[in-house]
C-alpha cells in the first residue's frame, strides 16, 4: 500500500529525515516509535504530503501509484488517506455531525442525506451517535478524538495515519480511543501509527519501526523489538520506558 525509498526531508538547514525506507502492506498495522524529535511525525506527514519531501527523495508510492508531489493531484491522494492528529483539529464552528459530513459532501459530492446516514453509522461505531448535535467544545478529549476518527473514516480511506492520537489525552481517556483503533485494525484497515503506547504497539502492531535522529534504526515484529532489540539505541530507548 505504501512504499517509501530513501525519503529525505529538511526544514531549512535542519535535516529531519535521512534516507528513510518504509513499506506497508495491505491490512498491515505499522507502528512508529522513537523519542520526540526523531522524525516519526514528519515521516507520517510526508505520507499524505502535508509535508512535501525533498526533491532528492527516491520514491513515494501510495496504493501502487508513484507520486510526484510537483505534478500529481495531492488532494486526490489525501482523500484516500485518512489522518488523525494529536490535537484532534476538529472544526469548532461545526457540530459533531457536520464535522463528519463536511468532506463527504464537499469533496466526494455525496448527497446530504447519504452523507448524514453514513456519518451516523460511523458515530455509532465510535460510540458517539448521541453527541451528533453537540459541538466539539462540549466533548471530552477522548470523545473529540473518536469524532476525529469518524471524520477521517467518512472519506472511506484505504489507509489511516495516526499521529500520536492519545498523547494529548488524560490517562483515563486513552483506553476508549485505543479501543476504537483496535477495532479498526481488526477489520483489516491499513494503519500507520505514531505512538508512545507500547502496549498498543505490542498488541496490535504487525511491525514496529524504531526511529532515532531521522533514521529508521531497526524494524521487526513487535515481539522481537520489545523482547530482544538488536540495536543498542533501541535497547536504550525501550529501557527508559520501563
Amino acid at each position, binding site marked *: 500500500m505504501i512504499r517509501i525509498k530513501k525519503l529525505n526531508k529538511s526544514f531549512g538547514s535542519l535535516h529531519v529525515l535521512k534516507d528513510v525506507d518504509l513499506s506497508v502492506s495491505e491490512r498491515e498495522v505499522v507502528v512508529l516509535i522513537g523519542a520526540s524529535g526523531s522524525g516519526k511525525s514528519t515521516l507520517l506527514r510526508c505520507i499524505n504530503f502535508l509535508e512535501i519531501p525533498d526533491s532528492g527523495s527516491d520514491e513515494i508510492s501510495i496504493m501502487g501509484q508513484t507520486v510526484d508531489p510537483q505534478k500529481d493531484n495531492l*488532494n486526490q491522494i489525501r482523500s484516500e488517506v485518512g489522518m488523525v*492528529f494529536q490535537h484532534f*483539529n476538529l*472544526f*469548532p464552528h461545526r457540530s459533531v455531525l457536520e464535522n463528519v459530513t*463536511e468532506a463527504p459532501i464537499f469533496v466526494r459530492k455525496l448527497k446530504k442525506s447519504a452523507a448524514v446516514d453514513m456519518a451516523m453509522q460511523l458515530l455509532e461505531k465510535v460510540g458517539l451517535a448521541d453527541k451528533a448535535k453537540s*459541538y466539539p*467544545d462540549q466533548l471530552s478529549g477522548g470523545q473529540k478524538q473518536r469524532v476525529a476518527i469518524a471524520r477521517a473514516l467518512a472519506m472511506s480511506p484505504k489507509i489511516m495515519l495516526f499521529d500520536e492520537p492519545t498523547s494529548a489525552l488524560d490517562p483515563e481517556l486513552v483506553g476508549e480511543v485505543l479501543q476504537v483503533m483496535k477495532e479498526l485494525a481488526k477489520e483489516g484497515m491499513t494503519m500507520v501509527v505514531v505512538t508512545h503506547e507500547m502496549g498498543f504497539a505490542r498488541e496490535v502492531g504487525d511491525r514496529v519501526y524504531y526511529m532515532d535522529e531521522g533514521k529508521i534504526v531497526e524494524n521487526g515484529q513487535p515481539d522481537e523489538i520489545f523482547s530482544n532489540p538488536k540495536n543498542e539505541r533501541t535497547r536504550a530507548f525501550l529501557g527508559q520506558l520501563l
Partner: protein
Amino acid sequence: MTAIIEIFIENWEAFLFATGMTLKLTAVSLVLAMVIGLVFAFFKISGSKILYSIAQLYITVIRGTPLIVQLMFLYFGIIQLVVLPAFWAGALALAIHSGAYIAEIFRGSIQSINRGQMEAARSLGMTYPLAMRRIILPQAFKRAIPALGNQFIIGLKDSSLVAYLGVSEIYGTALYAQAANFQPFETYMVAGCYYLVLVIIFTWLVNKLEQRLSVEQSEVTK
C-alpha cells in the same frame, strides 16, 4: 438650547434625507471595502512576493496619507477618465480607504486560526480554496467582528468628508444650513447628534451580533 431645538425642527426633513445618504454611502463603501480587504488580505498571505508587495504598497500609501487628500485625488483623478457621480466617487474613495485597514484585520484573523484547522481540512482531501471557504474563513470572520465593528464606526464618521464633493449627507447638510441661518454652533451640534445616535445604534447591533455568534458556538444542544 431652544435655538438647537429650533434648528432641529426647521431642518428635520433635510437631515432625515441626509441620514439616508450617510447610511447609503457607508453601506456601499463598507461592502466594497470588505471585498477589497479580503482580496488584499489574501495577497498578503499568498506566499507570492509580488502579490505581497502590491498589498504592502497599497496599505502603506493609504495608511500614510489623509483621507481627504485621497478623496480629492480620486475624485479629480476619476473625472479625467470617466464621469462618475460624486456619490460613487466618494463611496469608492471611502472603500479604498477602509479596505486597507480591513485587509489588515482579515489578515490577522485568518492567521490567528490554528494551523491544524487547515491541515485537518487538507488531510480530508479539500483543496486550499475549499478549506479556506468552509473551514478557515467562517472562524476568522467571527474573530474579526469586534475589529470590523470598530472599523465600520470609523467608516461611518469618515463618510462626512464626502460633503466636500458636494454630496448632501449629514455633514454636507449642516454646511449648507449654517451658511443660511448664521448659527454654525447650533447647526453643527445637531449634525453631531445625528452621528452620535447612528454610532450608538450601530455599536448596539455589533454587540448583539457578537453575543449571538458566541452563544451559537457554546450552545448546549442535547
